[in-house]
């Protein structure tokens, strides 16, 4: 964090102006609402290698250890039960809302009584039921198949919508999650930082996202949207990788979801992050439309949000209550 402070100091010196930024009131014209979709069809469909995992010849992870870790994860983390304990859980359901005026400053309006149909390789396989306890939420009960293509067709708000097809991929398992004491990638102060133990599926063109829950509370800060593709790390063992980046508080429990996604979903969440987290600097790029995969076929215009598919793996770690008696390097 200290380094970031220095860079901020540098920018401040350049500005010379002292207090560059302040909140202002702005009038923006009202707009008509449009449909927004958020959903992720998933299961614990893991990619398990056929043999022992060779990590650059330095470490060999026996296949039996991988299978044991996967079994422990599945026994320890019940994804289905997490939903009840958390404030936000996007998996195996579709949430339909509408856009709102930018300064409306209230929860997004839900869209009820919509018709939502899931298609697998072009064939309707399920009509989703709306959750009576959560208006605007439509639940899947269907189990996806690795390699199949999925899309949704939706009747809502007097229009017909369709999502672009997404291919369902399996995910390498999150073998373990650790809390490591020391400096991390971008911060030189010592603290507990997250480390994930996983590996990348051989073959280029893989995309991942991680989601973080601290004491079952989802960390929705946009600058902590964590994604990666396998450019330069294709087939690598990823041990101790801090995909979170923030300090972990003593005694917290951190649950991590590792999601395999498509490139379109990867680009979408990255754009959400860049357009919300990293703005306000003098060298920003132009604001970009955040294009999802929902299309309003009635108006032939893009609607908003994203329906994604892909396997997930979860794991958790309890951060120790005390700081270890080691010298911070």
């Amino acid at each position, binding site marked *: 964090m200290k*380094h970031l402070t*220095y*860079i901020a*100091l*540098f920018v401040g*010196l*350049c*500005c*010379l*102006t*002292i*207090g*560059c*930024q*302040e*909140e*202002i009131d702005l009038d923006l014209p009202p*707009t008509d609402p449009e449909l*927004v979709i*958020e959903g992720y069809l998933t299961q614990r469909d893991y990619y398990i290698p056929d043999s022992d995992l060779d990590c650059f010849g330095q470490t060999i992870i026996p296949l039996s250890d991988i299978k044991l870790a996967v079994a422990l994860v599945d026994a320890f983390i019940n994804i289905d039960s997490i939903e009840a304990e958390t404030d*936000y859980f996007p998996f195996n359901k579709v949430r339909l*809302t509408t856009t*709102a*005026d*930018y*300064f409306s*400053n*209230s929860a*997004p309006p839900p869209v009820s009584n919509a018709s939502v149909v899931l298609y697998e390789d072009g064939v309707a396989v399920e009509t989703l039921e709306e959750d009576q306890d959560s208006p605007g939420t439509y639940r899947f009960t269907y189990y996806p198949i690795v390699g199949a293509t999925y899309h949704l067709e939706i009747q809502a708000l007097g229009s017909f919508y369709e999502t672009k097809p997404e291919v369902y991929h399996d995910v390498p398992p999150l073998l373990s999650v650790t809390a490591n004491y020391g*400096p991390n*990638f971008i911060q*030189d102060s010592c603290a507990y930082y997250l480390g994930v133990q996983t590996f990348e599926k051989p073959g280029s063109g893989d995309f991942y996202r991680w989601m973080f829950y601290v004491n079952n509370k*989802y960390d*929705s*800060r*946009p600058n902590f*949207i964590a994604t990666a593709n396998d450019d330069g790390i294709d087939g690598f063992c990823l041990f101790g990788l801090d995909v979170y980046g923030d300090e972990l508080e003593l005694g917290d429990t951190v649950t991590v979801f590792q999601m395999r996604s498509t490139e379109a979903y990867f*680009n979408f*969440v990255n*754009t*959400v*992050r860049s*357009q*919300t987290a990293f703005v*306000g*600097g*003098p*060298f*920003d*790029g*132009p*604001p*970009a*439309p*955040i294009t*999802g995969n929902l299309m309003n076929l009635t108006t032939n215009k893009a609607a*908003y*949000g*994203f329906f994604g598919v892909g396997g997930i793996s979860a794991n958790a770690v309890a951060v120790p209550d005390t700081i270890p008696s080691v010298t911070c*390097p």
Partner: protein
Amino acid sequence: MRLIVTLLFSILFIGAGIAQNKVTISGYVKDLETGEGMIAATVLIKELNAGTVTNEYGFYSLSVDPGTYTVEWSFIGFETVSETIQLTSNLTRNTEIGFSQAMLEEVVVTGEREDEALTSVEMSVEKLDIAQVKKIPQLLGEADIIRSIQLLPGVTTVGEGATGFNVRGGNIDQNLILLDESPVFSSSHLFGFFSVFNADAIKDAKLYKGGIPSKYGGRLSSVLDIRQKEGNQKKYSATGGLGLLFSRLTLEGPIVKDKASFIVSGRRSYFDIFFPFAPDETIKDSRLYFYDLNGKVNWTINDKNRVFVAGYFGDDVFDLDGLFRTRWGNRTATLRWNHLFSEKLFSNFSAIYSKYSYSLGFEQDAFGLEWKADIENISGKADFTYFANPNNKVEFGFQNTYYYFSPGAAEAYFETGDVRDTFNFKVRSIPAFESALYLSNEQKIGTRLTLAYGVRYSGFAQLGAGHVYKYPNDQPIDPDNPSQNVTPIDTIQYDEWDIVKFYHGIEPRFSVNFQIDEFSSVKGSYNRMRQYIHLISNTTAATPVDIYMPAGEYIKPGLVDQIGLGYFRNFRANTYETSVEVYYKYFQDLVDYKDEAELLLNNTLETELYTGDGQAYGLEFQIKRKRGKLTGWVSYTLSRVERFVAEINNGDPYPANWDKTHDISIVASYDITKRINFASSFAYMTGRPITYPEARATFGGVTYPIYNNRNGARTPAYHRLDAAMNFNLVNPEKKNYSIDLATGVYNVYGRKNPYSIFFQQDEDNPEITKAFRLSIYAIPIPYLTINFKF
């Protein structure tokens, strides 16, 4: 082709005129005090009412029938030298002219003949007088050519502190900035807060916004031709200034009196002098500064030969004790040889070197990265001026430039325990070659009509060694889904010196001046320009570490056609100068960018770029007061700049970031006494285009803005008032030196001009969304500088 034939016939016609029995008077006009060649001094033969002006080196040539004539050499603010000469054969006459005592009390706005704006065939040209630039109130009191240019009609900037300047709708990379003929790729220090040009070392600066002469090329929108001083040939002198955050010193003098001289000028900021007093060890060992070093030597070998060597070095340095560092800077060097083949044929041969290099780096405990890029070029050019007769001046020449683009190389390391892994990544370096030939003639027809017509032919070849990726249907952008990444399907390898891609074309240039009467004239111009290199920058304001890329297989050269029309009128014996100009420009093949484009360290950069067209049009009005205690100008520009890119904004036109509908500047300087001067400037501009969100949506607990209309709104208007007082503490008329105290305030009333407006959700409650304004220099900034001259 028809144009070339016409030109050749014209030259032949001129040649026929030469065959007649004419005599030529030629030579240099120099400043009596310093021996410097005077640019645009007037030489007039009274009996014929025929004259000419000196060129960039102070040279003139006039061919007339034999006879006895009264010849006058003059320059505004200087005593006119008049002599009756019997011209029976060719005559070389070098003349020195000195300050006019009668004019000393008056402030000179432009260093040219009084009615130059009326009589010259050039239009859309702004000549900056360095003395006037030094009086304009500036940030921290640092006389700044680039910031002064921004007060001229037709010149805008994206925002306070933005790098570079925009001329008549052009991007900042469309300005050809020449320092003693060397191209300067970044004109700014500290991200755009100060220009790289030390005013103490500059003799002359001229900005061409339109009607660009044939001898210039390679950029679409403007030429800023800056000439450094040559050094005092008469005596040694020192000029400098001590400021709160900058100091500068210039030394000049004769090496051999009236034969050879030198000038060395340096400037350094010292923001970081307080760092050692910081309690924090990291800040103690940090550095933050910029510096410039200008130098020039010239040697008059004889009446026919003169040699110049000029150079510039400048850097910006920020080093946070190695944890984070960035550095960028220009290097230029010029070797010039002026040679007179005859009294009528002046030539200049130049060898030019220029390099702009920049780097970023940081080191953490277990990770480090160093990124470097540069653009380097070596150029040879020859320019000839043939003074055929008083009515025709022919210019021709050629230039060859070898470029070497290094768009980026990075070295990163990771340490795990005692193991250190190093990774290198390099974007292919690209050699290229640009050549140009030009031919033009300035022709006077009668006493009222002057034409300047010419043509430039330019070619550009991107060279091997290297590779070019091939894409499906030869398109790096999928037209059906332009935002989707396209993957190369093949690679074509090129050997060293293979031509990867060649572009070429003709660039016609034309200007006309019709002098209605003694006080007014109308002018028109047309020019076509080609630009073969592009600045790749997708940020609101360009950064010093943006890369340059040449035209190639997928990146086309830009092209612009510009027409202009103007009416010029002077009042009260040229005390007031007014002008109204209108212009229209159509741009082709401009580079634009995908949303979220990855521009650094990208070997498939073409998959991130769109190509589009654009247009700019406007009206510029200016009134100048050139003499008297009160001098200055008022300018107003009404303009529009639009881009058309099929893949952006649903293909609808959108305004460029630097589109400012109204732009008003008022600059005034008033001599309260002979030794006290007050100056002030006021600028008002329509707010810059910006994209506001139409609505918002929620995804993953994040409330995000929905943008659909690129640059569909505008920031609030920009306005700023600056004021300065200059006190002459030691009278140079009584002492051999002078000391001035310059003080002032930048942004007098502390206007919080928005640089940008951005939108974010509340940190604690994502359902609350807010708008924020980023302002630069949002408070009054005072300054105090001591200037001296010995």
